[in-house]
């Protein structure tokens, strides 16, 4: 097995005059947690959208597990083993949290049974177990639109994890979450993800979260990767601190 799980080479994509990807080269290694940081509009979400088939780059190539995935639909890419969560959680708002989880399990196991219930005992147990791991058992019977933002974020990621991806891309998993909740959420996430052995790429603005949980950090700036390396090294770089994190170099 190659050490590299996802390989992006020379990705370019512009929206009008704005270069959202201007020659992105990035290898994601098996089992690592890679954080993507950078200012708004730097192209972080665009990278996730290109990798998951939502956007098609104008140039470049993306390989997953050694096979090209460019041009495949989001559905086909999910089936190859790339899952994603969203900056704005994409839950089925009229369903309960349990149904959301069970539907994600059904999506993996096969939904084409029109007469057997979604919440059949085996899938209900599996969904409950999933929610348990994410600390969501207490809200299992609540409608998804009644959850607070932290629980919505976790449920969104739980649905992606239910698909058993080998690579999980998370777009700002802690944005909009109260500061006090943030670390709890990330610790829950890291515990679950480490236990599944999934490789994770996450876009993040909170440098404490990045410093604590990422194995490597990629710094995005104007559609390019300005720096890449271990958090201790990258976050200490005066240029990164000044231009990306917004802290004076001597602070």
């Amino acid at each position, binding site marked *: 097995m190659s050490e590299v799980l996802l390989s992006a080479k020379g990705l370019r994509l512009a929206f009008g005059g704005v270069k959202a990807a201007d020659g992105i080269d990035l290898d994601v290694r098996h089992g690592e947690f890679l954080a993507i940081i950078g200012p708004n509009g730097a192209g972080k979400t665009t990278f996730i959208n290109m990798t998951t088939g939502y956007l098609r780059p104008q140039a470049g190539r993306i390989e997953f597990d050694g096979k090209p995935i460019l041009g495949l639909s989001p559905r086909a890419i999910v*089936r190859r083993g790339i899952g994603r969560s969203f900056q704005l959680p994409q839950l089925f708002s009229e369903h309960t949290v349990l149904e959301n989880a069970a539907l994600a399990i059904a999506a993996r196991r096969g939904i084409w049974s029109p007469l057997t219930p979604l919440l059949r005992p085996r899938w209900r147990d599996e969904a409950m177990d999933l929610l348990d791991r994410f600390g969501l058992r207490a809200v299992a019977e609540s409608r998804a639109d009644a959850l607070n933002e932290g629980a919505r974020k976790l449920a969104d990621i739980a649905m992606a994890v239910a698909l058993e991806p080998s690579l999980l891309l998370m777009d700002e998993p802690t944005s909009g979450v109260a500061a006090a909740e943030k670390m709890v959420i990330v610790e829950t996430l890291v515990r679950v993800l480490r236990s599944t052995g999934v490789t994770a790429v996450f876009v993040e603005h909170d440098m404490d979260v990045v410093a604590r949980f990422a194995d490597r950090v990629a710094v995005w700036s104007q559609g390019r990767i300005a720096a890449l390396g271990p958090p201790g090294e990258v976050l200490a770089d005066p240029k990164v601190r000044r231009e990306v994190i917004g802290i004076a170099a001597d602070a």
Partner: protein
Amino acid sequence: MKRESLLAALGTLALVACAWAVPWLKFILTIALAKGIAVLGILLLLRAGQVSFGHSMFLALGAYTVAFLAPMESEAVLLLPAAALVAAGFGLVIGLFLVRYRDIFFGMLNLAFAMVLYSLLEKLYSLTKGTDGIRVAALSFAGTEPERGTQEWIVFGIALGLAILFGLLVRFYLASPMGRALAGIKTRETRLEFMGVPARRVLLFAYVLSALMGGVGGALIAMTTRHVTPQIAYWTSSGELVFIAILGGAGSALGPFLGSVAFELVRVYAAAAVAEAWQMILGAVLLLVILFAPGGVWGLLSRRWRA
């Protein structure tokens, strides 16, 4: 769920009792059940957040299938599945195109197909006898040709049986992974795609099922009225189905039948009471439902239970 089953059982008994006590109501109630089956199809699409403004095309396909085939094959037990298959087949063909669209485009494209069918039924006189319509030939039921009164009871019984069958089918379907994914199209279609679920295929299945139920409804109407005209495919007929869906409520498989029985009874009694203004009365009823009971008759009943 127990209350829903109880209501269904009581409703069934009430329909049979009404048909027995007031014989002329049997005709009205059979039509109401037939339309209720067709409206179950509208309910499925509403669950996906889509409205079909042309669903009467499937009623027409079912009804004309019976009218065309009856002279060659009079057996109702064969004509019903034939009508269902023709409607479902047509639903599959146009559905492959329609499920690419959403919201107003979905609704209006359905209307467009229905109006094309209406025009064909009206203009192809040599085949369809135009606006004169086709008289449905004598039917047989399991090899027998009963006299008229018995035949009305048989068609009423078949309509009631099929209403229960399709009501249960829709109920199971909506609770299944496919049904829950269908409801997911309304709120988060993107998420479905990112779960590897083909939303269009999910909607197509529901569309074909709704077409099939429309065909069955149309076949029952043809067997009841014994005369089929292009009016059944006209846009007002489709509007009537959406009207019934709103009146009954989309919260339960019982809604379409509550709506269709209420609709037919209001229409009959309003027409008898004020012949010139029955449409105004129906319009006022719809306004009141939208303003004060957005969940329809079913919503009113279930709210009462919860209180």
